[in-house]
């Protein structure tokens, strides 16, 4: 029996966002595509465990995230500082990490702990609910909320410090905003 074309199309429709999630996890387009390919192989081999009518993106994201985590655990012995390695990837292969205008943002994202980074991406970019993000990460909803909040706070600090003028409003507007007198 061949796979239901409707299910196949749901898988295909999720591939673009799977890639975006993968690159935000590992910071490298080539590795991200390997990760997505592995995810698709795994998913289609176990498609029976997908319940039709449930959330296909959440199911695929869970598989990808688990694959990434198990690979990460395997490599931890080889590479002491996985976060440093992520940052290093950005420095040495900027051409593999997407368009240059997002370099600064990616670099800031790379400085976040992996838990916070994935939570922020799932909720803030992929558009998952806190509940779905919690299910994908296998943790409590409150944990996701706190990770997202910490990620946002940290990013605000990193980006504001690196580029006040690029990032914030112009000086006069900033003064008004900072002064808070005129709302």
């Amino acid at each position, binding site marked *: *029996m061949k796979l239901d074309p409707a299910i196949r199309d749901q898988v295909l429709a999720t591939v673009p*966002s799977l*890639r975006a999630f993968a690159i935000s996890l590992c910071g490298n387009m080539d590795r991200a595509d390997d990760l997505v390919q592995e995810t*698709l192989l795994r998913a289609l081999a176990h498609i029976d465990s997908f319940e039709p009518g449930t959330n296909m993106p959440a199911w695929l994201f869970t598989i990808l995230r688990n694959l990434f985590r198990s690979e990460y655990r395997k490599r931890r012995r080889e590479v002491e500082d996985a976060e440093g390695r992520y940052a290093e990837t950005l420095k040495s292969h900027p051409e593999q990490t*997407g*368009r240059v205008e997002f370099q600064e943002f*990616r670099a800031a994202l790379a400085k976040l702990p992996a838990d916070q980074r994935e939570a922020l991406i799932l909720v803030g*970019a992929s558009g998952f609910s806190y509940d779905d993000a919690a299910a994908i990460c296998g943790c409590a909803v409150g944990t996701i909320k706190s990770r997202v909040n910490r990620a946002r706070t940290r990013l605000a600090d990193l980006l504001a*410090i690196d580029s006040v003028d690029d990032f914030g409003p112009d000086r006069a507007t900033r003064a008004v905003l900072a002064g808070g007198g005129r709302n």
Partner: protein
Amino acid sequence: MGERGKDDAMKHRKTSLEPAADKPESEDPMARPATGHHRGEARLGREIQARIGQQLRAMYNDVVNQGVPPHLADLVRRLSDQDQE
């Protein structure tokens, strides 16, 4: 930096836009909401958070908009056409 003059004191106190201006606060994220009663900072915070949200989605959608690479589309179609167990 010096030419920003009188704005400085206010900004240093209320925001973390200046490097090392309020280091203890920026090192402890949980300390930040405590300053949220300054309406100015709350607004600046929302402004920054809105921009972070925009950048995050722009970066993400940049990849999403690339669509499905041909080799991955082929992979899915090939595996879908195989007999399922």
